[in-house]
């Protein structure tokens, strides 16, 4: 606190703020003060009457000291924009904003100062011999080019002291404080970013976010002590120095640095959770009393029991569509698999467990529902050709037959249905005795189906195999009702498989001129058929087509098939008839058969030499024993082919007209029921559920393969629906390498998932060519 250089006029120049009775305007007084300084006055005494801003802006004095004594009552902003070398002494209190924007003046106030003391000050010092009002030392700065501004207060500071304080030193001595319990006022130092506040006395808190208490260092203390002395001297209270010189009474507040402000001094959430929340609610928090489930955080990608979905290797859980759609239930897919594995013989032999006629039916006569349902068809790819392995089955070898159980079943009818059930019963170890009306076994095989459709030796070989398995056959056995009743008593079960023997004929005039298709085909098969050049077949189904084909063989030149509706014929029969030149006409209704041919309902005459009627056959049920009910001309059975008599089953065309494979499948099914019942087993479901075709992946296969060169190519192009083909794609695709192939001994293996690695992505299911892998929802956790 150096005194400014004293020079210029030593005389005191007095300026009054009053002219007579009139108060001088602030503007006029300012002009007078500036003028006096310009004229060289350096000691001024101003009698103030509330004028604004007295004592500021005296730069005209240059580096010379100017002193201003203010008596009376100065207005606001005494010494505002004060310059260095200006010394202002106010002999009483000051109004608001003393030293506002002070740029270097020293202002001594012998009394209290109002609000806003030192607001925005950046140089100089203000010494107040009393208290200050609100917002003192606010927005002060320290320009590094000059020394720091200072505010000295003998008493206390008002509220909001030091707001936005960015620099400078404030000293609050707390002597005879206006608010002795709190010398810094309410909410001091909010937004403080720089400077120091020395204070003496109690405080009521300060902005912890912005300021902190700091120890008073030696240099600080020395400075404070020295400057206190000067302050007290200037305000005329030197006697207080000894009282103030107690170091322990002083405290120092400094601004927090930006990095010190960053962290709020609050408890962390984790600590709150532990120390407050769980402490009050109990372990497990909000619902710890209701559940013990672990609720700690988990990542998005998880393994083990936390996976939402888990892969399951469902090898052979479902039937391939070929197997599922085969009425006989032959596992066609399994046969191709055996071929892929190089086990061709096993593949061939396997069929005999399901049918006695794998070659005749699968290879030639069946419309091959297996191929129609082949999954390859969903992408318009050629189905795997079952007929190839069917035909190969001609050399299938019989399995070893088990010893006979003693259970006996009488089978009435030696056609496909009857031989199927007898065959299956014997494979299970039960005896079957076949009663056949005709002179030889085989039913439609041997009597009706044209040889153009199947080579004779195929049937002979397969029938020969049947005879090895079913030795007890009684041919030419017309059975009457009482015979059947007797069989029912003598045997454990009776199976009726007599087929549909009676051709249906139209109830029209001249029908006696027509020949039934069944009779015609039988004669044709026997080589004794006769027909004219012009043949009309009434009924254009597959039997009608067979008749047309055979008629051609026996010399017909013009063959016409009629039907009342769109012909139901399809497949090989239809193709053969068309190849024989047969024409199809529909819808037509026949009114009459005449010597010349036939007349249609609309009167049209069609010339014909031979008229064959092929509108279906019905069974002859005259032999049915009491207790076996019929319905609309057929034997009535339940879903298991059991008739109303529990000891009697009925299968094949005697139940309803159908395909050979349906008759054979029914035989197999009945045999299974009889075996289950004989062995006291709970009947197993006849077939597995079919796999959803969409699970199978076709993209691994070349759609341009439309014909198959041999069974091996068939095997390779089979999709192996629902059955693992051991390709290892799943092992290769699994992103975390969680899938392993385990040898289970022999030819058995499994693919297994390490659940501690698996993330449940389902890539195995997506990549599996066979639809074996499935992605299932994991078990519920709570």
């Amino acid at each position, binding site marked *: 606190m150096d005194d400014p250089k004293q020079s210029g006029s030593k005389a005191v120049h007095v300026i009054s703020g009053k002219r007579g009775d009139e108060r001088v305007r602030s503007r006029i007084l300012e002009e007078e003060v500036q003028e006096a300084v310009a004229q060289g006055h350096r000691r001024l005494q101003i009698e103030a009457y509330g004028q604004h801003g007295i004592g500021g802006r005296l730069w005209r004095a240059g580096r010379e000291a100017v002193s201003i004594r203010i008596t009376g009552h100065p207005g606001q902003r005494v010494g505002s924009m004060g310059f260095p070398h200006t010394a202002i002494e106010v002999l009483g209190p000051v109004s608001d904003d003393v030293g506002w924007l002070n740029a270097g003046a020293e202002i001594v106030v012998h009394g209290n100062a109002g609000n806003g003391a030192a607001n925005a000050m950046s140089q100089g010092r203000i010494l107040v011999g009393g208290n200050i009002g609100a917002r003192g030392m606010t927005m002060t700065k320290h320009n590094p080019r000059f020394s720091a501004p200072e505010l000295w207060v003998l008493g206390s500071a008002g509220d909001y002291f030091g707001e936005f304080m960015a620099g400078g030193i404030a000293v609050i001595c707390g002597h005879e404080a206006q608010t002795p319990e709190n010398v810094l006022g309410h909410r001091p130092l909010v937004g403080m970013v720089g400077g120091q506040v020395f204070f003496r006395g109690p405080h009521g808190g300060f902005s912890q976010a912005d300021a902190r208490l700091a120890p008073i260092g030696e240099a600080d203390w020395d400075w404070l002590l020295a400057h206190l002395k000067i302050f007290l001297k200037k305000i005329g209270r030197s006697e207080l120095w000894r009282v103030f010189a107690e170091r322990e009474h002083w405290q120092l507040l400094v601004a927090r640095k930006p990095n010190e402000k960053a962290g709020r001094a609050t408890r962390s959430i984790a600590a709150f959770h532990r120390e*407050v929340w769980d402490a009050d609610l109990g372990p497990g928090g909000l619902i710890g009393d209701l559940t013990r489930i672990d609720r700690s955080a988990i990542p998005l990608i998880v393994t083990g029991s936390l996976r939402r979905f888990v892969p399951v290797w469902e090898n052979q859980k479902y039937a391939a569509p070929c197997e599922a759609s085969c009425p006989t239930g032959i596992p066609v897919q399994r046969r191709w698999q055996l071929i892929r594995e190089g086990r061709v013989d096993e593949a061939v032999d396997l069929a005999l467990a399901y049918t006695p006629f794998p070659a005749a039916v699968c290879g030639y006569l069946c419309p091959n529902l297996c191929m129609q349902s082949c999954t390859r068809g969903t992408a318009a790819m050629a189905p795997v050709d079952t007929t190839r392995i069917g035909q190969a089955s001609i050399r299938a070898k019989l399995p070893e037959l088990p010893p006979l159980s003693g259970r006996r079943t009488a089978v009435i009818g030696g056609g496909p249905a009857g031989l199927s059930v007898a065959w299956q019963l014997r494979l299970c170890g039960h005896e079957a005795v076949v009663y056949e009306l005709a002179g030889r076994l085989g039913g439609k095989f041997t009597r009706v189906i044209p040889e153009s459709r199947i080579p004779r030796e195929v049937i002979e070989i397969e029938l020969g195999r049947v005879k090895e398995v079913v030795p007890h056959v009684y041919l030419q056995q017309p059975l009457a009702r009482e015979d059947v009743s007797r069989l029912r008593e003598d045997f454990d079960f009776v199976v009726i498989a007599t087929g549909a023997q009676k051709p249906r004929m139209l109830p029209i005039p001249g029908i006696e001129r027509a020949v039934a298709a069944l009779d015609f085909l039988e004669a044709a098969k026997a080589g004794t058929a006769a027909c004219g050049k012009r043949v009309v077949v009434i009924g254009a189904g597959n039997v009608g087509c067979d008749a047309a084909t055979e008629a051609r063989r026996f010399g017909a030149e013009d063959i016409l098939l009629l039907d009342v509706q769109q012909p139901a014929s399809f497949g090989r029969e239809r193709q053969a008839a068309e190849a024989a030149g047969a024409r199809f006409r529909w819808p037509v209704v026949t009114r009459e058969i005449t010597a010349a041919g036939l007349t249609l309902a609309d009167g049209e005459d069609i010339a014909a030499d031979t008229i064959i009627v092929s509108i279906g056959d019905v069974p002859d049920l005259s032999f049915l024993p009491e207790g076996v009910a019929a319905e609309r001309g057929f034997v009535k059975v339940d879903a298991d082919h059991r008739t109303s008599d529990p000891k009697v089953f009925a299968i094949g065309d005697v139940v309803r007209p159908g395909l050979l494979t349906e008759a054979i499948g029914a035989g197999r099914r009945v045999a299974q029921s009889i075996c289950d019942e004989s062995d006291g087993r709970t009947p197993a479901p006849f077939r597995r559920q079919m796999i959803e075709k969409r699970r199978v992946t076709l993209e691994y296969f070349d759609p341009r393969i439309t014909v198959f060169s041999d069974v091996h190519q068939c095997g390779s192009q089979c999709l192996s629906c629902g059955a693992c083909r051991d390709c290892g794609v799943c092992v290769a695709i699994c992103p975390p390498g969680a899938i392993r192939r385990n040898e289970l001994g022999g030819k058995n293996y499994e693919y297994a998932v390490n659940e501690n690695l698996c993330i449940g992505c389902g890539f195995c299911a997506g990549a599996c060519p066979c639809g074996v892998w499935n992605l299932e929802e994991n078990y519920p956790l709570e």
Partner: protein
Amino acid sequence: MQPERPISPSSLSVKDLRWQILWDKETCTLCGKCTAVCPVNAIELGVFRKRLIEPPVGFLEPPGNITKSYYGVRQKTDPAYACVGCAMCNMVCPNNAIAPMRADEVDKLRFHLDRGGQPRRRGGRRNVPGVLLDRLKFIRISMLTDPALDAGRHEFELRTLLGRVLPPEENLQHIREHGWIPPVREIYPLVIGGMSFGALSPNMWEGLQMGVAYLNEELGMPVRMSTGEGGCPPRLLRSRFLKYVILQIASGYFGWDEILHAIPEMKEDPCAIEIKYGQGAKPGDGGLLMWYKVNRLIAAIRGVPAGVSLPSPPTHQTQYSIEESVAKMIQSMSMAWGFRVPVYPKISGTSTALAVLNNLTRNPYAAGLAIDGEDGGTGAAYNVSMNHMGHPIASNIRDAYLTLVKLGMQNQLPLFAGGGVGKTGNLAANAAALIMLGASGIQTGKYIMQAAAGCLGSESDRCNICNIGLCPKGITAQDPRLYRRLNVDDVAQRVVDVFLSFDTELKKIVAPLGRSTSLPIGMSDALGVDDYRTAERLSIKYVV
């Protein structure tokens, strides 16, 4: 789908879907994370076939024809597995190789989301971009006309009153005569609106409650949260934290048996009782918690058997008129706590709101009225309810406030407004606008879901599957495998962050109005809008 298969009317192509998965073969590492995380199994590993035909130059050899297969991520087109656009695939993809994109035209999927004749329901997003509240400006910047304040450094007491405030003379009279004085709570003006334990996952709910407790106990902000209709965990009922809780009772009365049994053991009264009559975003539609979300835990809290669907009817069954509803329900709920707890109804925004309000003004026990506007919304509901029903909050709250002014009761019956507050991110601005229109306080739900838990929803029908228990963030799922993705502490921290930043923003808005200790409730001369008709309708300034 195999192109050779027959199609049905609902056979859609990827192009027809609302969200289309863009997958990049080049950057994909086939790590499986996207398919593992997809909440709706919309994507799977696909096997693709690729042909390479190489005609030889000069035809010296036969043309090459190589067929190969390769793997990639395939989007399913079955509407049952349609991508919901949540983009969790993108979140887990290490190479940014996959992301859903919104269809570039109106999707066909929307016409096929009603299998079995069940109209589409979705998880509580209204999907209307923009909100009127965003257009309201605070035009009174009173730097000199009122003492302007500094939002950052001045002291603010942003509090509001929940409860019936008696006129001073009446209050004095009651005190003199030892009469009953209605309970009034001084609370923070932003209330977390009712989202039930059950609608929300345990971790989400606990995170919210703990965040609220933290705000109260560590930061001195008296924030309150409504339970929604789903009861309240027994421990919370018996803890001191109950005073931060507004217990909601709604038409299903779920959990109230447990609440009543807890009353004798309560350490604190709850903040208030909210009687829910309607939800703004799906008015007229009741609540339905599907059976698969009702696990043992939810069942215990709601006081029902596990594994059954819990429908809340659209109406309270034993109430037949406004008079009766108000009198009966408010009285009953007040009685439960000896008339110490404020009880107020919450209705959906409606053209009949004034009828309810008029009724409440005549009921001395009514502690306030909460009106929930059509926008926003967190509850699952039918599409048609969400898209086509409801009343905007702005005019509703304004009319209600002006009605109170007419009756001279604007300081007596507080109004709480909700519905789309902050739906575009402007929580404080929307809240302040509603306050200046006349609301004493604001309820917000969706903003909290979004900000406190990272809800993926947007106003473009993204995700929106809160109702089926598959929330990929674990906010509305009851399966621990999903809700454990949400860390309780993180939610609490975000609640704290949200309220602190809201507080600063609200101060930034009210400080220039010179308000620091009383909210500018109904201070409509501070509000302006650039649409004349809107200004007229809301009795605010038209500014351009």
